[in-house]
């Protein structure tokens, strides 16, 4: 019987041999039997919006990277190269769907409306969570690899109990695929047939470890073993990602259970600002992936379609420049939290112990001030 489930999952899977794609690196559009039906509404305006979203995501990333180098942020995990994976999937969601991200999903956060100050406060080291998860329907950054896939699954169990047709989407990386939690999440999601999407951005490296160290087979192929249909797409092709995510979301909303998406992409930059990727990968490989750039690709496609690319680029530039200014302001005007906030929200009502430690700390601080 379990073989049937896995066979059925395999039947609804696609791209396991060769990732599904719509746009090739030259910008030319190719027919794709699985994905094309999802893109009938995507006109030039929609393409332009996707282009601007990706450009904005890239600029936010670049500015934050620079701010880290300037000592304004303590750390930054760059998302350069992964714009299509994040924007394509993020634009497929509706507002009431809930996003459980990892720590590199900056574009998702921006698309959800998280402000720059809220986005950057974590990386400034002034808070562990800049935004309200319930307000934006997006959990705050998750550092423990793969932990969020269980939260998304549990949220989706709740959605199912509520009879809601929203979806929980979990973002994870290729390294997370080796974690027990991710595998447990797939067991639960499949068994309880919950409205969840596992969106794996295979960016080829878990810090220094190449994806072949995590898996001997395509990551997406694993999902079918759990009875979960999988779609493997070119993660640098925003249209392919958008279409695949729409398929997964529709399946979930109709009660068809979870879907696994592997977006095959590449982390052009380092793992974080403290990493040195020259130690573990060669320039040739990076150059090869630069040639598959998601933004250039869409720009070429727009040009081939006769769109006024200069104008679109200019429009994006204006938005990006404004974002860069706003981002800088957000960082430089961010406030240092008061010391005693250390003691806030450990429990919903403070325990005697924490209240005592708070009082002791304040008395200690006051005594120091009294001396100086």
């Amino acid at each position, binding site marked *: 019987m379990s073989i049937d489930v896995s066979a059925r999952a395999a039947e609804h899977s696609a791209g396991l041999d060769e990732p599904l794609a719509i746009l090739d690196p030259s910008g030319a559009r190719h027919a794709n039997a699985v994905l094309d039906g999802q893109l009938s509404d995507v006109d030039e305006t929609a393409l332009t919006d996707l282009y601007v979203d990706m450009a904005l995501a890239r600029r936010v990333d670049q500015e934050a990277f620079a701010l880290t180098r300037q000592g304004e942020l303590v750390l930054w995990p760059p998302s350069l190269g992964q714009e299509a994976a994040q924007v394509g999937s993020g634009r497929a969601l509706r507002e009431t769907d809930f996003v459980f991200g990892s720590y590199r999903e900056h574009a998702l956060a921006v698309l959800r409306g998280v402000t720059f100050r809220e986005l950057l406060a974590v990386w400034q080291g002034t808070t562990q969570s800049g935004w309200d998860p319930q307000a934006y329907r997006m959990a705050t950054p998750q550092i423990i690899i793969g932990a969020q896939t269980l939260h998304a699954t549990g*949220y989706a169990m709740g959605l199912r109990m509520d009879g809601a047709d929203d979806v929980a989407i979990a973002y994870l990386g290729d390294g997370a695929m080796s974690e027990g939690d991710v595998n447990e999440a797939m067991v639960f999601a499949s068994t309880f047939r919950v409205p969840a999407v596992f969106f794996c951005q295979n960016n080829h490296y878990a810090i220094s470890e190449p994806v072949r160290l995590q898996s001997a087979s395509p990551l997406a192929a694993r999902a079918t073993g759990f009875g979960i249909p999988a779609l493997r797409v070119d993660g640098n092709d925003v249209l392919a990602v958008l279409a695949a995510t729409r398929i997964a979301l529709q399946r979930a909303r109709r009660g068809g259970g979870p879907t696994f998406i592997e977006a095959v992409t590449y982390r052009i930059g380092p793992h974080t600002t403290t990493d040195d990727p020259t130690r573990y990968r060669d320039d040739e490989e990076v150059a090869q992936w630069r040639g598959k750039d998601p933004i250039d690709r869409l720009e070429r496609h727009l040009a081939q379609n006769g769109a006024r690319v200069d104008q679109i680029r200019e429009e994006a530039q204006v938005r990006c420049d404004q974002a860069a200014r706003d981002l800088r302001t957000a960082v430089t005007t961010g406030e240092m939290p008061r010391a005693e906030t250390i003691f806030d929200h*450990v429990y919903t009502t403070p325990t005697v112990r924490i209240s005592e430690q708070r009082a002791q700390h304040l008395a200690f601080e006051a005594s120091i001030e009294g001396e100086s």
Partner: protein
Amino acid sequence: MTETLPLGKAIGRALGDALAEDEKVVLLGEDIGKLGGVFRVTDGLQQQFGEARVIDSPLAESAIVGTAIGMAYRGYRPIVEIQFDGFMFPAFDQIVTQLARLHYRTAGRVRMPVTVRIPYGGHIGSVEHHAESPESYFAHTPGLRVVTCSSPQEAYSTMRAAIASDDPVIVFEPKAKYWGKGDVDTSVVRDLDTATVLTRGRDVTVACYGPTVQTALDAAVAASDEGIELEVIDLRSISPVDIDTVVDSVRRTGRLVVAHEAPAEASVSSEVVANVVERAFDALNAPPERVTGYDTPYPPSALEGHYLPSLDRILDAVDHVLGRRSSRSELALTGGAR
């Protein structure tokens, strides 16, 4: 309403009452449905409330806790069962890195009203990983409330309070006491912060919790035959531990014995003794004593009687803090002391 129930049934009653009162309460765990749990604590609940609310889960402890966290994001109040104390470690990561700190991490914007039930402790004559007392790991983790119980009444009231709490609560259920009967008044409520004084006595304070409480009460009866009065305190709440009640008692008795099944090193007894020394050093007439499991792995069950705090070991510690002849004084006389 008062009824006589075994402790395990009292917990089951608390779960059933919570399920009946609040549709957001759901149960999740291995074998809790049709089987009613390996200890039958959840017996009949799935029949009564359906498979959607009393959920038999796949065998994956991290997922049991991790999905409960997701459900809490969605507004549910999940109660999860980890089948045995020794099986909680796969779930440890989700408990300490996620459940315990999501409220803090989100600056209070997310609440995690999740109850984690762990049958714990020894004296059931089982094999490895079925008799441990891992409460200190959780007591060391900020953001968790850690509680236990020692009687059917306490079991009922503790479980109801845990479920009602908006903080995550780890409930350690003394599995060897599941079958011990007592009166349960379902209208009795408790907080999750305070200890209770079970017997008043002028000579020695004995602080304990969970399965060790009955042993201490038995020791109090035995000691009274010799004219010694023990003040037995059931700590109930392991974190936060109610030091005020212990200190008040020690100020009256001047002597302290702390007893539990877990190993002594970096344990609840370490915490209680340290706090009492900090706050009531002047009131102590003797160094405090600890009667605990030894700092070894839990032994094979044939030897657990030697490992667990027994009535005689508690009385021996009482003798020692009173300056009477005890095994410790013998050890000192033979030159074996450190």
